[in-house]
């Protein structure tokens, strides 16, 4: 993996790309993509997985007061207590490594390299990894988005999960209350406890809902892909048709000219004839087109296919009612009756099966008894190998099961 190259060029690095070899195509979890600043993860990602960072000329590190005017490469990150601090940009880190100059330029590096330390502003204990890029100008918004994002993951019940609208609204109200408390730092420990309790109580439902959403997203994507492919195919077809049309017209033009040159017929008649054939062709194409496509979407197309199929099904060979077995393989069923149990020393341990392992696995001793009985019945038809005086060849019944002898 060329993570270095990615770093230098500021390209996106796929997390978990190393394990992509074993990724199944059906794997439903999307890859987490982040910018080159993977060391500081988090931040609010847009649909393409990139983090857009907030950036303004008035940026200033609240800790050391260095600002963008003096340090254009200033990069501010936000801590979990929503206080900003500045970090060295990748370029500066690289310069520092290359030149061997170590200056204390980054507040985050300076304060948190040696492990967790209190925030210089609010003195909450922080770690270096707890910093994430800023997306919104207003840090309150940043916080609210992060909290709502977190809550949405746990509180994903739908209207279908409730008995009536009233319950659902109560639930939504409660979620709002929790969000409000967290955003405004009211009763945080109690609220967290509430979330934990909810999480424990609804784990299965939450998982099921996540599953459902993923399935829906997948279906949507497939549908989109299908639509896109169809559109492309239709466009390609259209281009092809136009091309064909052009070629044909050219050909006819040439034909007409050569005819006018060579044959001694009336020029007017020839031109009229050519025009007529052209018109005929065009109308034929138009009707063909209206049958074939006519701007149908997936649903209409499918319905059409279905209709065609149903019609075909009606016209050709009639369907016959179901007959469970259609072969005449004789299984000697009429010669024996399987009893519920046998005095069988070979299966005694199996039948006792104190641990119940045999039962859970689905082994059925009846199948073995059935087989033994059937084999015995089949054996009745075999002639003994010795002790029989007749000169006749073996009976035809033996021939049908000739493999018995060979085995």
């Amino acid at each position, binding site marked *: 993996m060329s993570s270095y190259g990615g770093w230098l060029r500021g390209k996106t690095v796929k997390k978990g790309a190393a394990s992509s070899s*074993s990724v*199944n195509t*059906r*794997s439903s979890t999307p890859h987490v993509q982040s910018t080159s600043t993977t060391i500081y993860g988090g931040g609010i990602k847009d649909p393409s997985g990139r983090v857009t960072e907030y950036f303004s000329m008035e940026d200033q590190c609240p800790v050391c007061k260095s600002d963008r005017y003096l340090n254009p490469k200033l990069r501010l990150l936000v801590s979990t207590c929503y206080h900003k601090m500045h970090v060295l940009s990748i370029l500066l880190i690289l310069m520092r490594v290359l030149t061997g100059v170590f200056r204390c330029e980054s507040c985050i590096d300076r304060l948190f390299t040696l492990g967790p330390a209190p925030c210089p502003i609010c003195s909450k204990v922080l770690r270096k990894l707890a910093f994430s890029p800023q997306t919104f100008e207003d840090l309150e918004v940043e916080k609210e988005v992060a909290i709502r994002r977190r809550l949405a993951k746990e509180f994903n019940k739908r209207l279908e999960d409730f008995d009536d609208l009233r319950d659902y609204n109560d639930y939504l109200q409660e979620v709002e209350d929790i969000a409000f408390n967290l955003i405004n730092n009211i009763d945080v420990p109690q609220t967290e406890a509430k979330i934990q309790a909810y999480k424990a109580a609804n*784990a*299965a*439902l939450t*998982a*099921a809902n996540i*599953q459902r959403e993923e399935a829906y997203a997948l279906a949507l994507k497939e549908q989109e892909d*299908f639509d896109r492919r169809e559109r492309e195919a239709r466009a390609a077809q259209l281009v092809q048709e136009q091309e064909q049309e052009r070629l044909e017209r050219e050909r006819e033009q040439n034909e007409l000219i050569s005819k006018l040159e060579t044959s001694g017929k009336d020029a007017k008649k020839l031109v009229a004839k050519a025009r007529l054939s052209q018109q005929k062709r065009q109308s034929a194409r138009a009707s063909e087109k209206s049958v074939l496509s006519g701007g149908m979407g997936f649903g209409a197309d*499918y319905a059409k*296919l*279905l209709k065609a*199929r*149903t019609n*075909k*099904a009606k016209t*050709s*060979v*009639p*369907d*016959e*009612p*179901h007959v*469970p*077995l*259609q*072969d005449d*393989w004789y*299984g000697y069923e009429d010669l024996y009756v399987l009893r519920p149990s046998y005095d*069988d020393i*070979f*299966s005694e*341990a*199996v039948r006792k099966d104190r*641990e*119940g*392992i*045999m*039962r*859970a*696995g*689905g*082994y*059925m*001793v009846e*199948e*073995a008894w059935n*087989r033994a009985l*059937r084999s015995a019945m089949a054996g009745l038809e075999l002639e003994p190998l010795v002790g029989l005086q007749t000169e006749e060849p073996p009976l035809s019944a033996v021939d049908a099961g000739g*493999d018995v002898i060979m085995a």
Partner: protein
Amino acid sequence: MDAVERENADRQKRWAKEQKVGEGTYAVVYRGREVATNRKIAIKKIKVGQFKDGLDMSAIREVKYLRELKHQNVIELLDVFSSKTNLNLVLEFLDSDLEMIIKDRSLVFLPADIKSWMAMTFRGLEFCHRNHILHRDLKPNNLLTAADGQLKLADFGLARDFADPGHKMTCQVITRWYRPPELLLNARYYGSAVDIWSVGCIFAELMLRIPYLAGDSDINQLDTIFRALGTPTEQEWPGHTKLPNWHQPSTTYPKTPLRDLFTAASADALNLLGKCLVYEPRKRISALEALKHPYFFAIPFPSHPSKLPKCAAQVAVRAAEDAEQANIDQNSTGPGVRAAEPGSRKRKLNSPEEFRARSIARRLDFAKQANSP
């Protein structure tokens, strides 16, 4: 030349090899013709040379069971002969499999079509079970369809006969997505119910047009099953917690009705599907009972085999072939290559874990593993 060699040479002369159509892990498949009748056949040449210990296990299994089974819904083994050091199986020629048909989006399945395929699958399976043989590798890819639409069970490379009481069987059989929970829990004593689960998965796949229980690893497979069908309770499946590989799952999934996913299926169809996917193997429906299930007798009647959907590409290839019999395109990479390949391992060895798991059943497969796609 002794009598055996003469006999072998005679046999060999009856079949003409024409064109290579595919290569499996342990066999090369050729298309050919019966010299006397000009009937199309497939010749599966087992590579003997590379296995020190002799023949590949699956080849032995295949010959052993196919020689015994003659049924309209089981692939027919027409002949076996040897050439130089190779063993050749002559099989009937079948040009497409159910996986291709399911994946072909231009095909529309009527409920009657699904019913017809299911009936044929159950009929083939019932015949195997009636003859005390477990197939142990049922999946759409191994259900081949003949030109007349008949569906046939193929690839008996993992088949075995019912075990005697107290004899262990390997649990590393059946392709993952179609493997029943008792095998995922490493049960060593099991019965015909394992095949029924696979058929249930195929039934669901026919309705959904996408694999139903697609886990991405052996561990994840069990989780996928539980998520779809609910975590089993002791009442639903007595004794399952005693099976060797059982671990108490961290989350218990609720039971969701099948109706939620299979919105368009008839009540009978869902009833049969539910009975195929019962956790307790002994309670799972048997092939014979399934064939007598009301689903098959209800309207619509199962489609006549000749009317079942076929792959468009397949039809085109066949038409072109019939048009110019003599001129066979050597570079053709159409579905024909995939088709007449009863021994192909398409969904089998696609991950390292799976290979490790399977290597028990297919001990001699190492040689080709690196090359297999």
